[in-house]
């Protein structure tokens, strides 16, 4: 006879209890409680016929088709056990208790009475199976549990592992660093990351992995769990996994995609790479212009390199007849400069401005007005004097202005001479 029991707690008694149990009796109780619970069972009274290895009368406790305990007798011996104060806990949510009596009893035995109850399972504490353990945080509740992730992570659809959102990475600088999430700490599980490096045409990308490289692998199968793959447009590099760094990878493209996959297990450090770019074409070094400079000066220039052209003091930049304050040329992807170099021409201050009642004297015989040339203003009449009183020499400056040491670009004026008598003072007279 099998008695199903579905309550969360209850009592099991041997037949006729507390009167002696009948001969040749066999009765089972199948206790089941909801999932997420276990069953605790303990005996408050036990009095069965003793026999070697409980071969006559006995109580057998089973769960999941495994025998948890066999009890008989009134006290423990070398070969028989009584439950005493022992509490039996089912591994899962069901437990079977079977009572059996044989055909004869030498004495009268009163049987047994046991209590059972359902108890909640703390899955966060008791789970040992890696496939069931929460990746980051575990939260227990009555009859169940759930997992959650640290900030920045997302719970995977397996409701256990924590993944990251990592596919919006686009790198456009000419050099940079990429790494697995959290590097050098273990990378997230259950994630698929896509890193795009996109430079303009004319550059070729070079990737260099750090020596520290740790991606979960398998001794016999090529990268079955986690791996990194690199696609440069025409060619694919990888998959890479294990502890050996892929080292340097010279691509043939200005665009590269790095794909990294991680499965739902493993604790591995991951990877980091530095990427650089080289120009596909070089531009020839231009000659330094006469009376000018190039900055920077290099033996070779490559795509996107700039050169600033400046002139020596007293010279101005001219390009196509137009005077420029500065000029810059750039190396193009086809190996040519954006334009030819401008020329540096000497600054011409032009004819000096006229000052009323004053003459201009040129220092150079050809009346030069170029950078460095000097002129002098002098008042025409003897009764006029230059004002303010200064050396009235002007020099053609770097910016095309006539400059006086004291007045700058300000012009002098001729004003009437002061303090000059028209008669000399009389000589001292001898007394």
């Amino acid at each position, binding site marked *: 006879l099998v008695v199903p029991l579905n309550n969360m707690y209850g009592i099991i008694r041997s037949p006729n209890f507390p009167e002696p149990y009948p001969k040749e009796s066999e009765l089972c109780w199948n206790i089941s409680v909801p999932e997420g619970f276990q069953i605790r069972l303990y005996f408050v009274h036990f009095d069965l016929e003793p026999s070697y290895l409980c071969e006559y009368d006995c109580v057998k406790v089973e769960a999941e088709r495994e025998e948890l305990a066999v009890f008989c007798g009134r006290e423990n011996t070398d070969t028989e056990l009584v439950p005493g104060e022992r509490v039996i806990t089912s591994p899962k949510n069901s437990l079977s208790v079977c009572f059996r009596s044989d055909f004869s009893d030498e004495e009268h035995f009163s049987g047994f009475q046991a209590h059972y109850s359902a108890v909640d399972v703390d899955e966060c504490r008791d789970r040992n199976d890696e496939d069931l353990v929460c990746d980051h945080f575990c939260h227990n509740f009555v009859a169940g549990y759930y997992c959650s992730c640290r900030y920045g992570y997302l719970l995977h659809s397996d409701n256990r592992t924590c993944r990251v959102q990592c596919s919006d990475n686009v790198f456009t600088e000419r050099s940079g660093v990429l790494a697995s999430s959290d590097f050098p700490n273990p990378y997230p599980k259950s994630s698929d990351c896509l890193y795009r490096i996109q430079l303009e045409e004319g550059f070729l990308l070079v990737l260099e992995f750090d020596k520290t490289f740790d991606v979960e692998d398998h001794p016999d199968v090529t990268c079955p769990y986690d791996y990194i793959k690199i696609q440069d447009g025409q060619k694919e590099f990888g998959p890479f996994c294990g502890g050996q760094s892929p080292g340097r990878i010279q691509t043939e493209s200005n665009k590269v995609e790095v794909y990294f996959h991680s499965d739902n297990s493993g604790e591995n450090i991951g990877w980091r790479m530095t990427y650089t770019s080289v120009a596909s074409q070089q531009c020839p070094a231009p000659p330094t212009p006469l009376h000018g400079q190039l900055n920077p000066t290099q033996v070779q220039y490559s795509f996107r390199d700039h050169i600033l052209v400046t002139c020596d003091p007293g010279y101005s930049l001219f390009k196509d007849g137009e005077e420029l304050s500065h000029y810059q040329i750039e190396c193009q992807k086809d190996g040519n400069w954006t334009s030819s170099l401008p020329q540096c021409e000497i600054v011409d201050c032009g004819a000096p401005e006229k000052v009323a009642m004053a003459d201009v004297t040129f220092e150079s015989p050809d009346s030069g007005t170029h950078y460095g040339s000097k002129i002098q203003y002098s008042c025409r009449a003897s009764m006029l004097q230059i004002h303010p009183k200064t050396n009235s020499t002007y020099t053609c400056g770097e910016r095309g202005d006539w400059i006086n040491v004291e007045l700058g670009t300000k012009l002098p004026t001729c004003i009437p*001479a*002061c303090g000059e*008598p*028209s008669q000399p003072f009389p000589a001292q007279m001898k007394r």
Partner: protein
Amino acid sequence: IVGGRNAVSGLFPWQVLLTIDDVSRVPEDSWFGSGALLSESWVLTAAHVLRSQRRDASVVPVAPAHIRVYLGLHNASAKDQAVNRSVERIVLHPNFNPRNYDNDIALVKLSHVVPFSQLVRPVCLPPPQDKGHHAPPLNTLGLVAGWGISNPNASDTGLVADVLQYVKLPVVAQEECESSYASRSLNYNITDNMFCAGFYEGGHDTCLGDSGGAFVMEDPEGGRWVAHGLVSWGGPEECGSQRVYGVYTRVANYVDWLHAHLGTGS
């Protein structure tokens, strides 16, 4: 000018005669002073020459219409041979103090520009006064010209010198100047805007009628004559008395103010 000499024509081409006829008072009560030509339009003089004599308006200048300016004048009795100008504007120094003659300086703008000639030429202004460096230098000689009294004993206070007179006077130490006036019964105040010139023993001095004339010194570097002072005031004793120094306005203290009005910059 006491103890001076006759100037020859053209020796002081910046010297001008200012005659003032203040009709607010009795007509006979007109007076005169000197000035120094700075440019074609401006004349430098002492403020007290131009102030009204009315008691209730001690710092009010006389009306420009009552002033006549004579330029290139040598003999004061022959004004008809000189260039003369009326006055457009008077600028008294705003801090002129008529009680102690502090800031005794003024500008006169001529109504029409005056052409320069052998007899009409401007005088130079000194550089601005530096702190710790007094201009003019002590004990050096300067020249002052004027048509003022030459004989202080005479009772006549009119134009007593027909021909322009001039005198050489040394610059006196400021301490000596202050102590010479401190011993008087009256309270005199020699400020830093004044300096003294004259001889301890007297005999040479400026006097009534010379006010506003320039105390000039020759610039040792450029050879030009620079107006370092303006005839301002003296003690009640006779001009040229012993230890009676003439007091002059220190022009260097006002160079920036003058340039600002003349529009000539520094």
